[in-house]
């Protein structure tokens, strides 16, 4: 495979008429990174991916891969390859011909391109389906074929547009592991667009959380989860309470909350208790109407049990509080 190269976006902007889809974002993705572009729908993540792919041309700014400015190059000249959300397999071509398509376009001979295609089908464990048509495959199998097709040009960066969204939850978790394994084996950069924070946390080395055309926060999944800088990040990543604490707003992970007998700290009323296996989730309501969630271990719950309607005190570990911007 090709030598991986770092990707850099500098002040990249995308306008559609008067609307600003991507607002001057700067981003550095080191070579061989699994990067997830994360955010709600309409946040600009797909536009960003398509600009990197070359299916949209940036209105402003530069996209640099390695030492080359690829901002205005056609997709096939960039060293990137894209895997489409619907997989976009050619329905009239066999699996083998689908995978070999890019080589056929380059004029590679039949024997050579089929040999290479078979090698890639082997990589995604689809060799025995080589002669089938896409319509004869399941969703997961189609995805593997789409992966093999994207990889045949030996891209330095593989771009994946919501690759798991068409799969059922069980298959999604399996394909997730598969994608991660493939990225590790190939050593190239994967840029994966998703709106699921759980998916991003499970996969990414680098999570780029986007909102309203801007990058809200970027970093490793643990950095972002443990130190959200804004209320949006804390809410989107989930598992946090947003608490007004005097003049400041702070975020505290729900599993760092403490519930005790109603003697000290803020008092609250338990409004819901949910048993979740290893954890017990408790929702409490403070006198000023805030609802807070606390995840406590089953053991901690057993040592000081409570039930709906009980008055308790709610607090948190001091080092768990993050002041939000």
């Amino acid at each position: 495979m090709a030598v991986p190269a770092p990707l850099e976006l500098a002040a990249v902007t995308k306008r559609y008429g008067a609307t600003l889809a991507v607002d001057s974002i700067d981003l550095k993705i080191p070579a061989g990174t699994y990067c997830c572009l994360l955010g709600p729908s309409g946040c600009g993540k797909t536009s960003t991916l398509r600009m990197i792919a070359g299916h949209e041309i940036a209105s402003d700014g530069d996209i640099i891969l390695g030492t080359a400015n690829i901002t205005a190059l056609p997709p096939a000249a960039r060293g990137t390859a894209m895997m489409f959300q619907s997989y976009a397999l050619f329905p009239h071509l066999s699996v083998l011909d689908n995978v070999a398509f890019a080589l056929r376009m380059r004029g590679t001979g039949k024997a050579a391109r089929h040999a290479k295609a078979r090698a890639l089908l082997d990589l995604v464990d689809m060799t025995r389906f080589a002669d089938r048509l896409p319509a004869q495959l399941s969703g997961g199998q189609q995805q593997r074929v789409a992966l093999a097709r994207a990889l045949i040009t030996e891209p330095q960066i593989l771009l994946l547009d919501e690759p798991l969204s068409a799969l059922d939850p069980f298959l999604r978790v399996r394909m997730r592991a598969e994608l991660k394994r493939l990225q590790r084996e190939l050593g190239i950069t994967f840029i994966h667009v998703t709106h699921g924070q759980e998916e991003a946390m499970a996969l990414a080395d680098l999570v780029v959380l986007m909102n309203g055309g801007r990058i809200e926060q970027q970093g490793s999944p643990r950095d972002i989860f443990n130190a959200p800088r804004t209320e949006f990040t804390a809410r989107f990543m989930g598992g946090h309470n947003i608490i007004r604490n005097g003049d400041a707003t702070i975020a505290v992970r729900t599993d760092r909350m403490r519930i005790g007998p109603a003697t000290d700290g803020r008092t609250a009323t338990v409004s819901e208790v949910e048993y979740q296996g290893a954890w017990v989730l408790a929702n409490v309501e403070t006198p000023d109407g805030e609802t807070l969630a606390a995840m406590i271990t089953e053991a901690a719950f057993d040592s000081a049990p409570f039930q709906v309607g009980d008055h308790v005190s709610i607090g948190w570990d001091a080092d768990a509080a993050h002041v939000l911007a």
Partner: protein
Amino acid sequence: MTRLKLNTVQQRLSAGAISRLQALPMAFVFAFFFILPLVLVVIVSFWDYNEYEMIPAFSGRGYTDTFEGCAAQLPELCTILKTYAKTVKLCAVTWALTLLIGFTVAYFLAFHVKSRMWQITLSLLCTIPFLTSNVIRMIAWIPMLGRNGLVNQGLQATGITHAPVEWLLFSEFSVVLALVHLFSFFMIVPIFNSMMRIERALIEAAYDSGATGWQTLRHVIIPLSKPGIVIGSIFVITIVMGDFITVGVMGGQQIASAGKIIEVRLNALQFPAAAANAVILLTVTLMIIAGLQRLVDIRKEL
């Protein structure tokens, strides 16, 4: 009460029997208005006839009379074979031109016109020729193409030619022109329909794989438009093969066609001979379509 009855009826009939029952009215229409006349034509084609009546007795005269003296003339083609050859040639030229125009227009509508509303508006524009009758549309060509028609006047006024161009009207050229004008629409619609079903991501995927515009056309769009191309071709070929009005009017009654032979026989009240020619024409047309079917299995593609 009625519902109760229906339920018991449904319980007694299997799902397959119900769907066959539902298809029955259409099957009846089809049998009565298509199969039955066709069977009658084949039967009559094997009857005997004289100058003024047909005789219901088995005879191959309808066929032998048609090809009288043809075997002796070989390898030179006799008139009747020449006529069939000419019909097939007119059909082939018309087919090629309607395909080219139909594909191009459909491509433009499907891939270049982005808004749904414009696609519908422009498709409706294509139907405008059908607001007038077939005959009027043909006759309208005469002031256009005649000796003193618009085209000739224009050519002479600009000094491109000094005498009127004779082959513009009542020629093979004018026949093909009128046929193409009449039938391009029958190509556009099914091809456009096929193209609209092509997922747009496939074109991006081809582009992503480094395909040029022409390569995308050849390897993605044409193969996926095949069902539409075949359906449009069947429309055009069956209509043009049997046409005698257009060939008659636009050819100035100078060009013979397979349809014309049937008309002439009918006018001479030689029904068995007319029927025999109809059977021959049908066979030739079905053979052409069978050839197309080999190219693409439409039953699978639909």
